[in-house]
């Protein structure tokens, strides 16, 4: 058996193990209101997925959070470029990033709800959670560019854009990829949490909030399962896009 096939089989076995643990726990509890079984959750998810509203809701939430993540990637990379050039700016910005990383996300959600319209809060929160990770990883990537290659660019007087494309970008990409890997899940979870607290119309967060309100635990589990599946899907998709940009350097 090939190594990837063995790994896939192992992942499947681990998944089945935990589903079994969940099913046994649900049977022991015996009340779907407290703990629905995996089968009930799956059935509910399939029922939800049959309606167009489900896909519209997922689509809106995904777009909102992705917009936040994209904003954070652009802003984080731009700030990293600036702080790479200016140690003073880096000294000024570093404590702000540390503060953002260590402040509970709920505090930011409440503050953003006070300052901004509820529709935009999930986007801002997702961006805020991803920003420090992107900034710090891209900064590391920039600091790690081989100085010998920069000297090469200087001696051969490579145009700035060519040096950026051929030296800076491939040097930073592995760090950006690592940032996306750790920040995507974070941004998505924070975005959905912000939706739960701000309940913007037609969002996953609103559906989770309503399921909790009406004690629809099975629906709550189904929506949570949807969040996990979408999170995995987005992560795979975006990392594949980055890998394509990275080319043979991967």
């Amino acid at each position, binding site marked *: 058996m090939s190594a990837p096939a063995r790994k896939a089989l192992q992942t499947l076995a681990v998944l089945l193990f935990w589903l079994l643990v969940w099913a046994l726990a649900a049977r022991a509890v015996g009340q779907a209101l407290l703990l629905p079984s995996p089968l009930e959750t799956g059935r509910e998810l399939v029922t939800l997925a049959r309606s167009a509203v489900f896909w519209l809701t997922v689509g809106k939430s995904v777009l909102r959070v992705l917009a936040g993540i994209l904003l954070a990637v652009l802003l984080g990379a731009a700030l990293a470029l600036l702080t790479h050039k200016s140690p003073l700016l880096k000294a000024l910005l570093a404590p702000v990033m540390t503060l953002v990383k260590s402040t509970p996300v709920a505090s930011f959600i409440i503050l953003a709800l006070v300052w901004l319209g509820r529709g935009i809060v999930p986007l801002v929160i997702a961006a805020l959670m991803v920003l420090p990770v992107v900034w710090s990883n891209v900064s590391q990537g920039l600091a790690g560019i081989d100085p*010998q*290659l920069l*000297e*090469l660019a*200087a*001696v*051969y*007087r*490579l145009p700035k854009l*060519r040096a950026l*494309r*051929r*030296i800076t970008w*491939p040097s930073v990409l592995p760090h950006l990829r690592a940032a996306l890997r750790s920040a995507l899940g974070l941004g998505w979870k924070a975005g959905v949490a912000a939706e739960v607290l701000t309940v913007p119309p037609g969002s996953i967060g609103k559906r989770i909030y309503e399921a909790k309100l009406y004690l629809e635990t099975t629906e709550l589990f189904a929506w949570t399962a949807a969040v996990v599946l979408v999170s995995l899907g987005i992560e795979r998709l975006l990392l594949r896009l980055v890998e394509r940009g990275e*080319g*043979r*350097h991967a």
Partner: protein
Amino acid sequence: MLDVRDVTLRFGEKQILDRCTIQLEEGERLALMGPSGCGKTTLLRIALSLQKPDSGSVICTASRTAAVFQEPRLLPWCTAAENINLVLSDRADTMPEAISWLGRLELLEARDLLPAKLSGGMQQRLSLARALAVKPQLLVLDEPFKAMDEALHGRILRLTSEAAKNAAILLATHSEEEARALGCRILRYRDGRFV
């Protein structure tokens, strides 16, 4: 074309260069010789404006400069052909020219390989091919032939001399034979200067 005047440099307590002056006219060839650690590489770096001296001045009027460093300094994520094309235009239209340089340096079979797949000697030849490809006015060579095997050494030396026939060359080497083969006037290290 290159005027390095009264350059002084210290590393801590050690005086490396002491009011050192070298001048290079168009097409002129100079070889710097001296024991390891005497400051040959440092002087080349100063001439390329990669390092600032403690005092003295450097004026370089060459419109195209190329260098072969002691390390090949190849982009690890680019193929051999792309590494040469990088200094030409990095567009597809100059790729045939890049490949022809690979051929001249006997590296044609390596055109699609990444530097990590090449031997030390091949990497150094690739670095030399990249330098020659830009048809430099000033070619700076820091022991560029040391990793090459005996069989190739003579051929590559002749090729370099021929391909860079209009270039001014500043060479750092331990080998008088290399200096002579490239037609260089030899300056030897003495008390912080090359004379």
